[in-house]
């Protein structure tokens, strides 16, 4: 029992450390002396180390790729995209999904019916399929409609992933709100004549926070995995771990490092968010899991 608890605590610490380190490195990378620029080629003794000539080692921690770029440097720089996209999508998902969920759960009636159908519909499309189609369609629409030049692939990916985050969050929040609105303290507040807005703001929302934070943490891991997968399939960002995997995987037998390290980055980061979510769910005693 205690071994397990200790293990779990260690997992939580590991996750927190990894995430802090990753965010720190990703943000400060341009100023760090030991991290090359993403487009800086590795040269040893003046000789360009292209075509995977350099495995992991002193000159390049994670080895080089076919063009001679430093895999470690790219892993660090590209972490920015993964984190940025994941966090943006999660925040949008929390705001929109939370709003929809609260509205559906609190007001019920036709609002609930519409929101529920929309959620059902979104969830009936496999998340990845939805994201792929969405990103690629946004590509076309952006080109066809004038004035959308500022929209970059990154925002398309964020938009697609946000939608993925909205549906499960809305569902969970709706269920929680439905339960909360029947609880004594909410009934009390309502019977005292508090407005809906006030009840939601003071009674409902604070009680939703633990669930939302927990779900968001695990969800963040899933979204980062989805971001990597999109890049892997060629519909995501070029500057992404998933893209590194796709770009190098055909040479897995000859230059394992170029594929394996980005894989590990993705894997460990996703696991770290999952661990964090697991810790939080135990802490707040939240049972809902996104599947």
């Amino acid at each position, binding site marked *: 029992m205690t071994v397990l608890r200790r293990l779990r605590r260690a997992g939580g610490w590991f996750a927190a450390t990894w995430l802090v380190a990753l965010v720190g490195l990703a943000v400060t990378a341009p100023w760090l002396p030991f991290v090359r620029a993403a*487009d800086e*080629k590795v040269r040893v003794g003046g000789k*360009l180390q*292209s*075509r995977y000539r350099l495995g992991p080692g002193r000159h390049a921690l994670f080895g080089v*790729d*076919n*063009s*001679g*770029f430093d895999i470690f440097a790219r892993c660090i720089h590209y972490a920015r995209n993964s984190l940025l996209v994941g966090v943006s999508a999660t925040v949008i998902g929390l705001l929109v999904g939370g709003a929809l969920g609260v509205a559906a759960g609190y007001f019920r009636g036709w609002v609930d019916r519409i929101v529920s159908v929309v959620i059902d519909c979104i969830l009936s499309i496999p998340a990845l399929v939805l994201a792929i189609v969405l990103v*690629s369609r946004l590509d076309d629409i952006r080109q066809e409609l004038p004035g959308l030049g500022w929209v970059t692939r990154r925002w398309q990916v964020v938009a697609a992933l946000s939608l993925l985050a909205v549906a499960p969050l809305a569902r969970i929040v709706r269920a929680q709100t439905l339960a909360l609105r029947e609880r004594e303290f909410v009934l009390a507040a309502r019977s005292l004549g508090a407005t809906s807005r006030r009840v939601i703001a003071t009674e409902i929302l604070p009680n939703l926070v633990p669930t939302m934070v927990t779900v968001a943490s695990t969800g963040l891991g899933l979204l980062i995995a989805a971001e990597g997968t999109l890049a892997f399939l*060629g519909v995501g960002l*070029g500057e992404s771990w998933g*893209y590194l995997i*796709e*770009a*190098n995987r*055909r*040479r897995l*037998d000859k230059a394992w490092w170029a594929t394996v390290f980005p894989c590990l980055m993705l894997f460990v980061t996703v696991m770290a968010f999952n661990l964090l979510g697991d810790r939080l769910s135990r802490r707040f005693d939240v049972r809902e899991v996104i599947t």
Partner: protein
Amino acid sequence: MRSVVTRRRAGAAIATVTVALVSVAGPARGTTPPAAEGDPVMGGTLVVAGDAEVTNPWTPKAMQCDSYCQQRARTFYDPLVVIGQDEKVHPFLAESVTPNADFTQWTIKIRSGITFTDGTPLNADAVIRNLQDASSGFLLRAVVGDLAKVPAPTAADANATALKVDKLDDMTFVLYTGKGGDPAKPFPWPSFPFALTSQLGLIASPKYLDSVAAGGDATKPVGTGPFMVESYAPRAKLVVVRNPNYWLKDAAGRQLPYLDKIEFRVIEDSETSAKALQAGDIQVFSTSASAVVADFRDQADQFPMNEQTKYVETNYGLVNLAADTPLKDRRVRCALSMAVDRAEYVDTLDAGITQPANGLFSPGQEGNLADNGFSTERNVDAAKQLIDDYVKETGKPVVIFYGTTNSALNAQRAELLKGWWKDIGVTMTWEQVPQDAFITTALLGKFQILGWRLHGGTIVDQQYIWWHSSASAPLGQLSLNFSRLNDPVIDENLDKARSATDDATRKAAAEAVNRQMAKECYAIPFSFTTWGTPHVKALKGFATMPTPDGAMAADGAGFAGWFWTTTLWLDPKA
């Protein structure tokens, strides 16, 4: 012209297609048939892999044909003429292709006694039907643009035209040249037979064409070829079985083909094909993926490899000359070209096995020059100077947009170019464009620079429709002259080459085109490809394809990388 070096699944090489239709010729491998191979053994099943699949329906008119498609099409279709290993055109299904004295009329006589595998007899009517059909296709129409046309109104199109054809007898007919299709403007076109070595010359059964036109099953093509289609699944598998009544015999009088069955698989990635060959899943494949070719050079004792380095493709940056961008300025174009580090390009992207390109004429091609006035050496200072001049003059920084198809190698190329151009003060942004959109982008001129690939061929006449100003259309309209090249010197020399009756004149004209393109930096050449065809030891009979007149047909004619399968055989002893 090809857009891609290695294609991923998504990237069936549609871009290839367009272009490749026309390019002709290109006798391949210098390897002479090794006499020591012994007598062919009949029978057996061969499994071949290829990397792209863009071809359905399998009608000569509509096929979108790259190298692998050409190879497969030639298992069930026979061409009218073929290119021999002597780089000359030899009759095949045609018994003869004869010009009149001034090369304005071409008399084609069809070989008798041949039937399609559905029992339809091959005769002049069948061939004319094919040519008429093909010349209404989007691209082949351009190939026969200088053949005379006559009005042939249809219910759908009152202004439709057809080739002007005179049928002399059941087996013979005449075609006429006419500038721009005008019968009143006959002109000498000595190199016309080269056009017939392309897709245009592949002859399908009229019954099959009728069935497809009526909405029937297009996936079961019927021709006179050495094999018959057993089954076809797009992007997966084509299975052909021996045509027991094939009309051609080998030099020793043995019935062709030797193999019982060929399974053509689509493996869109050459690295994967390589593993499949090593694992014994396939017996042969062709690739221009340099890293794979390099790998197989080290495995020659286990997997012999035929290499092709002549008449190969050129990887280059296709430049939009009509759009209102800095690329309109020669200085910018030349600077970009000079900034490319071709040594690093070859080392990195081409695994060190290709040659840096100084222009669009690959080695062996008519017009190729060791020195065309452009140096492949990187010259950052000079390039920077040119850019600085331009910026000073216009007051605007140079920002360009580069497009390429989805593939890892193409993305790498884009990244490398971005770095090199950054060194001379040019900002490049790039995006991967979906394959399908890619070709449309080029046709409509909605691009600045595209990563592109040009199919070789032998004579410059084959590039006429891609470079001549008459093939150019304004931006936003479909133009086979993607770059919207409009240069009097190039036009003049292309015309000269088309009508030249002697090789020397034609060669001089081609070289003039090469020099002019280099001078104006109309394209940004990167490298010439190298093709490899690694195969199992037991597979023999490469480059032994006979033509009826006793010459040897060339592998990879028009498209580097394909090979005749009619004469391949599997040696059970190896």
